[in-house]
């Protein structure tokens, strides 16, 4: 751990904690009722009709990924890897949302269960912006590292 974090270190630390906490919560909400999230995944209609097993696996894999990577982000352990995971996940979400919007499908997000803040209702531009902002934060952490109060040992940035 860096003895004296850089300016970036103090900036990325709260973002890392916030993002980690957010995704752990999102994963917990999804896993507390996997059936509902499976409906959301199926509603994206991106899997072939006979690939129900893939939909079910994704319905469980996404929240487990969020919980594991989110926990790592909070701890500041394997931080860049966790940030890369979230970058890929958010990129996939964004592509999925764009696909849904282009096909004019009515799909509930299912991202945070009943706690859809600040975006309510069906997937729309708000969700795109929200995920875009989170993607930017994930990329920042990926590039700048864990920042202060992390288990990872990072060379001090000058």
């Amino acid at each position, binding site marked *: 751990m860096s003895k004296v974090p850089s300016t970036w270190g103090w900036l990325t630390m709260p973002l890392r904690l916030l993002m980690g906490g957010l995704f752990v919560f999102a994963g917990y*909400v999804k*896993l507390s*009722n*996997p*059936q*509902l999230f*499976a*409906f959301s995944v*199926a*509603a994206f*209609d991106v899997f072939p*009709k006979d690939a*129900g097993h893939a*939909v*079910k*696996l994704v*319905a*469980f*894999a996404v*929240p*487990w*990924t969020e919980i*594991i*990577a989110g926990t*790592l982000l909070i701890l500041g352990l*394997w931080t*860049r*890897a*966790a940030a*890369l*995971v979230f970058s*890929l996940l958010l990129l996939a979400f964004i592509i999925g949302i764009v696909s849904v919007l282009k096909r004019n*499908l*009515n799909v*509930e997000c299912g991202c945070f*269960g*009943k706690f859809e803040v600040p975006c309510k*209702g*069906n997937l729309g531009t708000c969700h795109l912006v929200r995920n875009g902002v989170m993607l930017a934060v994930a990329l920042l952490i990926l590039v700048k*590292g864990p920042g202060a109060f992390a288990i990872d040992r*990072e060379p001090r940035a000058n």
Partner: protein
Amino acid sequence: MSLSITLYRTSAILIIAVCAAGVDSIFRPVRLPERTASTSPAPTQPPSASGAATEQPTKTALAASFPDKGDITLAQARELFSKKAAFADARNRKDYDAGHVEGAWHMPLEDFSGGSPEAAQFLNKTDPIVVYCTGGDCHASHDVVIMLEAMGFTRCYVMVDGYPAWQQAGYETSTGPGPTGGGQ
């Protein structure tokens, strides 16, 4: 830190997550709705001429060939309506308030996220319940049926044509809060 280490760790996180997901999905299986592109076959008997309910209770006087559950046509839904079957609207609150099948409960999918929706406690699990949304590619009604069946409801139907078809047919509708004054 080298890129390769980050990539190895990223792969490790994803592999662990997928393994956890695989195990979890075995112990907590989920169901997916069977999408229906078109409506089910026409009813073997014409619906009642009047929408006003004249027969009670709900589970009587249906044709023997009437399905026990599953997708039904608009006419079949109307027949159940005339027998005073319960209706559940799976659309969002705004759409529901703008207009719904007369007497229908508001039961969107998100109401199941905290357990069972409030409306479910007023319904008999062995009586027919017709769920609908907007028809077309709307999947919410099938999803709600899966949730209801998981709660023990045995005769759940999906009016696949959805509310627009009901409204277009000139059948009974109402606006604003539902049977319990919007508390559902």
